[in-house]
């Protein structure tokens, strides 16, 4: 779960990491009022979960509440890179002496935490890592000993000596926050030193581990601020892994790998998947039924492909779930079903006996993909 900049900074503030004074605005009037409160000048920043705001018109320095209102109005109206924008952050303007970059993240290849620091601020860190890796200090932190003073010293040695104390202080706090809120990424870009010497987090990028949200209801609730597709919201509520895509073949499968593979095979058959939906391991009839409802609630869907290879998931329960769903929703589109694995024979038997007009059985995954793609494009309809 990726947090907005202002949400990340609210966490920073809880951990005493210095951030600029800021006020969130959801209307142009609020932005003007916020700027007034910040002394008549501010920086207005679009709150989105994609990068490149600086170059893309997502950040504006304004010298009057009136200008703040104009910029906020534009941002809220136009969105950003195709994403809707529901809020902006107005922050005080600070006199910056130097800009740096720092981040803490979980490094999947080692299973350790990785801390990065460079004296070059506001950079594209991936780009810098490619072109001048020696400019970045990288320190691995073993979770068994945690972030120690020596790790911090190694990191801040990348900075001018007068900036080290302030940066060290922030790294220590950011690591504690990373652990306590179960973050997998805490990035501060830029980390700045002000003219008065203070070191401040000017931006925030925080990612929280979804698997740990159960112990952070306060963070989980921040999600309510996200603009979200209503179909995705429904799937989420039911505990289904659903991602909306652009095509017209609705996809349901069990297991992330099989579903991804199904999307690929449908594409090879000339179709375009309308979604990714993983019913998960040990799917019940009810989950299967809900999945079908979720997929069918997308008006773009012209055919559905259910591809199940049962391990924990049992074919008989899948078949019952499909039939249950067909009673609840009256589908207008064909549903191609391919069942294999645990209790698949029972499942196939249940479906065959039901003789539902919308159900088309397929023997193999490739055949199923071809059928579903063809049915969506009307060829086999």
């Amino acid at each position, binding site marked *: 779960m990726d947090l907005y900049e202002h949400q990340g900074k609210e966490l920073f503030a809880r951990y005493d990491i210095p951030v600029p004074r800021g006020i969130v605005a959801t209307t142009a009037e609020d932005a003007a009022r916020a700027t007034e409160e910040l002394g008549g000048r501010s920086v207005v920043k679009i709150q989105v979960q*994609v990068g490149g705001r600086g170059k893309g018109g997502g950040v504006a320095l304004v010298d009057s509440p009136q200008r703040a209102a104009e910029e906020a109005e534009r941002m809220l109206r136009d969105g950003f890179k195709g994403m809707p924008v529901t809020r902006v952050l107005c922050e005080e303007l600070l006199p910056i002496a130097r800009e740096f970059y720092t981040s803490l993240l*979980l490094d*999947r*290849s080692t*299973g*350790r*935490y990785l801390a990065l620091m460079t004296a070059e601020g506001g950079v594209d860190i*991936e780009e810098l890592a490619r072109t001048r890796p020696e400019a970045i200090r990288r320190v691995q932190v*073993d*979770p*068994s000993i945690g972030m120690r003073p020596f790790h911090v010293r190694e990191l801040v040695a990348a900075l001018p000596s007068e900036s080290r104390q302030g940066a060290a202080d922030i790294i220590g706090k950011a690591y504690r926050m990373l*652990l306590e809120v*179960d973050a*997998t990424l805490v990035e501060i870009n830029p980390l700045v030193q002000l003219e008065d010497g203070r070191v401040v987090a000017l931006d925030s990028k925080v990612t929280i*581990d*979804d*698997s*740990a949200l*159960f*112990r952070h209801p306060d963070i989980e609730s921040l999600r309510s601020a996200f603009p979200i597709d209503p179909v995705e919201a429904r799937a989420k509520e039911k505990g289904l*892994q659903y*991602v909306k*895509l652009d095509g017209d073949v609705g996809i349901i*499968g*069990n*297991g*992330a*790998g*099989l*579903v*991804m*593979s199904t*999307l*690929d*095979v449908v*594409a*090879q058959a000339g179709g375009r*998947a309308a979604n*990714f939906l*993983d019913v*998960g*391991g*040990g799917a019940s009839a009810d989950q299967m039924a809900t999945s079908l409802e979720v997929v069918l609630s997308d008006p773009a869907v012209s055919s559905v492909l259910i591809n199940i*290879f*049962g*391990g*924990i998931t049992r074919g008989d329960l899948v078949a019952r779930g499909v039939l249950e769903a067909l009673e609840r929703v009256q589908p207008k589109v064909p549903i191609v079903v391919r069942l*294999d*694995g*645990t209790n698949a024979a029972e499942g196939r038997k249940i479906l065959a006996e039901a003789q539902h007009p919308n159900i088309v059985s397929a023997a*193999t*995954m*490739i055949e199923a993909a071809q059928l579903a793609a063809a049915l969506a494009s009307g060829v086999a309809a």
Partner: protein
Amino acid sequence: MSVLVGRDTRLLVQGITGNEGTFHTRRNRDFGTNVVAGVTPGKGGQDVDGIPVFETVADAVRETKANTSMIFVPPRFAADAILEAVDAGIGVVVAITEGIPVREMAEVRAYLDGRSSVLVGPNCPGVISPGEANVGIIPGEVCTPGRVGLVSRSGTLVYQIVHELTRRHLGQSTCIGIGGDPVHGIGFIDALAMFSDDPDTEIVVMVGEIGGDDEERAAAFISERVGKPVVGYIAGFTAPPGKRMGHAGAIVTGSSGTAQAKAEALEAAGVKVARTPTEVAELVQVALS
């Protein structure tokens, strides 16, 4: 022959009294796996179909000489269960549980460093050596004994690809699901090394997916160290960037972790990369003929 699990496996099931735990314990035992014990705190002294349930793994190991553990406990207790198994001297720990917080897995992984226990998973389908032992949720009936070693991040792709192999009479030595979580136990490289050393594995199938760089690092390992043919498959060519595709670890971040890059890295290492699960079996057939 086989790797990780086989005829010597003495299986302990942590979380044996839960629904899924009991269901798959029975299936594994019916397959022929030697299931010697279960553990559920608070239920020590009970039994499941005659399999004794213990209060702690240490007790179970002392009484039954269990050497392998399968973990079905709920996510918030699962990291503790893994540590318990490692501490009790279990050699192979197979964690099926999905949704363990990654911070806890980072701690587990650090603890495994320098210890002799091997962790498979979490969020994995387990390990099966057809004809010998099944530890996990891979449906045994789709497998058949043979000389193909298989390692996969995805569970259902194991089933799908094994199914395609078996249909073509290409039996398997061992199939390993390493799991789809960002921080996990053994990876492609460990599995490839085991298959390389296993005299009865003739060819290896490696099934990857988007996210991370495990496949890229495996490719480097293959070109340096693996003397046997390897067939690859990567799921997620059509996955859009920035979207997590079911598995916690399956996400294209910026320009890294794409299926395309992984396939190219494998091909550069001499691996034949299939475009569908069916093609995997076809390529194996060609390589062995």
